[in-house]
């Protein structure tokens, strides 16, 4: 139902041509279920096109420029960059899967000895070697009917990370998934597709990092599906450091079973145009889901978070904290929905979105929403948009702290509520380091923290 400008065949033509070219090279023996999934996705995209701002979920998010940019997939991995040159983060880990322009780069990846029956590898291989494990879940959680980018990702499913952990298995070291864009003359696209299935009472920490060269126009359009079995514990981080000319249009969904516990924290630092659609379904009694986010746009960067938390069963808890720091003429959108279904009594759900505007030209649209159909629930939501506290600034300066330092200190302090919630210390330390480097006279933070 998009307006003609973004739904018209003129706009869609190049995308559909790209798909036809892509589909013609798919293996003949592709599993039928996957082929059907693709067909449904591309048919939906053909019919609905790109969303226009007339749609509620895209009201403040004009994607017409992305729709009109001729992003093309890179046919195969042309590895010309080492990950260490590009990615600012590195960890000691159990396994690291590296993808260049959406293609698995085996020679740059490493996988440790895995517990019995655990599978960690790239999706492309898993479709062949573990078709049942993949097909049970692939495409089952992220809806693409109303999201053109999730639809495109689904149509273009080719590679990504696949992690399948059996029951009662604790993965002690984290798993790092690293998606690098290598930089090409023309705008490129990649469609990483990740599937993470964690069995009953199992535990894992996963870090998804997205990075690319400082300059260059590219589209990263990932979809990540996370399935937590009963009593499973998952810690998930998504860290995005792409080019300020890049578009990052991501979808993620977490499905929580009984008594599972998932914490997913996203950090959006790069990207000229970033959209994170994050969904969670708390579908078993006692499930507990935390979704936190930090975004820090400057220049003309745009960051959009659309969160949707579905409480379908009783006695679940969800918590959201999204904090934004906006400089220059950056813009941000936050739209968070908590939907408590009639069965979901004794739900506890909290959501807050706090924004700090450092410039008069920065702009935030924040819209928390509650939809409650049960009567015995405890839900809170709140949203704030403010400037640096002048009283606090003066107080710090009156004790000898320079003006720029005082500002940086207060900005860091604003972010610290998010930082303090990061359990995995390498991610926390890297984030601290990033902020200290990013803020003027950031050294004061090291002094004062």
């Amino acid at each position, binding site marked *: 139902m998009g307006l003609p400008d973004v739904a018209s065949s003129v706009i869609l033509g190049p995308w559909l041509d790209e798909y036809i070219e892509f589909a013609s090279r798919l293996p003949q023996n592709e599993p039928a279920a996957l082929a059907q999934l693709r067909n449904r996705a591309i048919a939906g995209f053909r019919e609905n096109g790109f969303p226009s701002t007339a749609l509620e979920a895209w009201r403040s998010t004009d994607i017409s420029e992305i729709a009109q940019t001729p992003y093309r997939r890179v046919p195969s991995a042309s590895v010309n960059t080492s990950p260490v040159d590009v990615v600012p983060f590195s960890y000691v880990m159990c396994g690291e899967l590296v993808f260049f322009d959406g293609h698995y780069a085996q020679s740059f990846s490493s996988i440790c000895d895995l517990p019995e029956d655990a599978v960690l590898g790239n999706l492309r291989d898993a479709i062949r070697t573990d078709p049942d494990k993949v097909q049970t879940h692939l495409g089952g959680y992220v809806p693409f009917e109303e999201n053109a980018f999730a639809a495109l990702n689904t149509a273009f499913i080719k590679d990504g990370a696949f992690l399948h952990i059996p029951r009662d298995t604790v993965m002690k070291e984290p798993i790092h998934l690293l998606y690098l864009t290598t930089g090409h003359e023309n705008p490129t696209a990649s469609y990483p597709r990740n599937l993470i299935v964690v069995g009953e009472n199992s535990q894992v920490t996963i870090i998804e990092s997205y990075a690319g060269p400082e300059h260059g126009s590219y589209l990263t359009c990932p979809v990540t599906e996370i399935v937590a079995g009963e009593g499973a514990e998952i810690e998930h981080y998504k860290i995005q450091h792409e080019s300020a000319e890049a578009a990052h249009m991501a979808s993620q969904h977490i499905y929580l079973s009984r008594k599972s516990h998932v914490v997913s924290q996203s950090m959006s630092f790069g990207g000229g145009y970033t959209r994170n659609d994050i969904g969670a379904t708390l579908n078993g009694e006692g499930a507990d889901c935390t979704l936190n986010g930090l975004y820090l746009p400057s220049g003309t960067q745009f960051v959009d978070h659309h969160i949707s938390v579905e409480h379908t069963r009783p006695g679940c808890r969800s918590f959201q904290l999204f904090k934004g720091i906006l400089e220059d003429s950056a813009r941000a959108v936050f739209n968070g929905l908590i939907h408590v279904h009639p069965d979901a009594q004794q739900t506890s759900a909290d959501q807050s979105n706090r924004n700090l505007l450092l410039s008069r030209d920065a702009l935030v649209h924040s819209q928390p929403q509650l939809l409650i159909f049960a009567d015995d629930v405890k839900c809170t939501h709140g949203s704030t948009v403010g400037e640096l506290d002048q009283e606090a600034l003066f107080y710090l300066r009156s004790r000898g702290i320079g003006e720029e330092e005082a500002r940086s200190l207060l900005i860091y*302090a604003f972010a610290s509520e998010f930082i303090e919630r990061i359990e995995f210390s390498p991610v926390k330390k890297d984030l601290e380091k990033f902020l200290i480097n990013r803020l003027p006279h950031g050294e004061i933070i090291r002094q004062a923290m």
Partner: protein
Amino acid sequence: MLEVKNLHAWIEGKEILKGLNLTVKPGEVHAIMGPNGSGKSTFSQILAGRDFYHIPEGEVLYEGRDLLELSPEVRAREGIFMAFQYPVEIAGVTNAYFLKAALNAIRRHRGEPEVDAFDFLEMIQDKMALVQMDDTLLKRSVNEGFSGGEKKRNEIFHMAVLDPKLAILDETDSGLDIDALRIVADGVNSMRDPERSFIVITHYQRLLSYIVPDFVHVLVDGEIVQSGGKELALELEERGYAWLVKHPADENHSEPVPDQV
């Protein structure tokens, strides 16, 4: 140390200070008393470097330099400290580490070596004892969730650590019970020395029984209308301020309001 000459200050088209004069020499303790709205806090804010006042006339010399030219942080580094009437809560900034950063900024300015966390914690022990600061207040965010008394004690603790030459106490006694008042006063008294000066701003005489001033000034309607020794405070306690307030008939000298400041 400090010379204030004919200081006029305006805010939002209203004249708050109307020619204030004050001279403070090293080692002296000056109390400034006055009814609400007389300009006491405006005066302390101007000394600390608050920039939202318009100052069309007058000057403030600190150790012979034009104080009004200096940013708040440079004033602090040059030895001026103001204990806030309403200390600001700053979530996410740890009290102790912030104080260490402030101390190091001051030390850098003085050409002294910076202190590390270990030395810092050692050197603040006796300052903490001075105002009976609880260890937990060091680790918490600056003033966040502190009681009124804890906030004021924290201000005196900051003062003791930062070791200023001129300390301004802006209504430090407001909201304090008698025990907290005594702790704060003891802290201040222990810091009195021939080189350090204090300006104690207060509405009530009570604080001045504990911090005995060398001079008492009465600020009424933006001007010092009476100065004297410590006994003036007692007289004010007895007689109130009314006898010093000008009669309405005298108030016909109001000056033209300047354009937007």
